[in-house]
C-alpha cells in the first residue's frame, strides 16, 4: 500500500522548536490539521505541502517522501 511519510516534527524541532500552532498559523490551516499530517492521518494537498516546505526553506521531497510497501 502506498504511503506518504513526512519529517515535519523533525523540521519543526530544527526550526527553534517551532510549535504546531506556529506552523499552522504560517501556512494558514488549523493546528489539528498539522497534527493529522504529522501523524500520517491526512495527506495534504500539493498546495499545502509546498507551503509547508517553503516555511522550512527546504525542497518538497525533504518534507514528504512516498513509499510503496
Amino acid at each position, binding site marked *: 500500500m502506498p504511503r506518504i511519510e513526512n519529517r515535519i516534527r523533525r523540521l519543526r524541532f530544527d526550526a527553534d522548536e517551532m510549535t504546531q500552532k506556529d506552523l499552522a498559523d504560517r501556512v494558514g490551516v*488549523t*493546528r*489539528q*490539521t498539522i497534527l*493529522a499530517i504529522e501523524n500520517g*492521518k*491526512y495527506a495534504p494537498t500539493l498546495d499545502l505541502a509546498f507551503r509547508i516546505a517553503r516555511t522550512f526553506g527546504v525542497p518538497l521531497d525533504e518534507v514528504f517522501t512516498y513509499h510503496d510497501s
Partner: protein
Amino acid sequence: MSLGERETLSGLITTLIVSVLFLWRLSNQHAAGLFAGPDALQIWARSVLLLVAISIGVAIVVAIGFSIFHRLRTGEKGDDRRDERDRDIDRRALTLSWYLLSFGILGVIIDLVLGASAFRAMNLILALCGGSEFLKDAVKMILYRRAA
C-alpha cells in the same frame, strides 16, 4: 478543538434535540387522532413546518451555547479557521449521508408501490432526513477524532 469539530458536535446535539422534539410532537398528535382524518397530510405538514422553524432556533441556541461552554471549560478562544481538511471531511461525510438519503428515498418509493400510504411515506422521508443529518455529523466526528 477546531471550528469544524465544534460545529459538528453542536450539530450532533441539535439533531438529537430536534429528533426528540419531532418524535414527541408528532407521536402526541398521532395519539390524539389528529392524523386519522382526510386532511391528515395538511395537519402533518403544518406541524412539520412549525417544527422546522423551531429547529432553526434550537440550532442557533445550541451553537452559541456550545461555543460559550467550550470557551468557559477550556479557557481557549479556539481556532476559527476552516481549512482544506475540514472541506475534505465535509465532502466524505456528505457523500455517505447522500447515499443513505438516496437509497432511503428509493426504498420509500418501493414501499409506496407495495401499497404504503402517502402519510407513512412522508414520515419515512422525514426520518431519513434526520438520519442522514445524524450520519453526516457522526461520520465527521469520527474522522476528526481519528487524527486527534
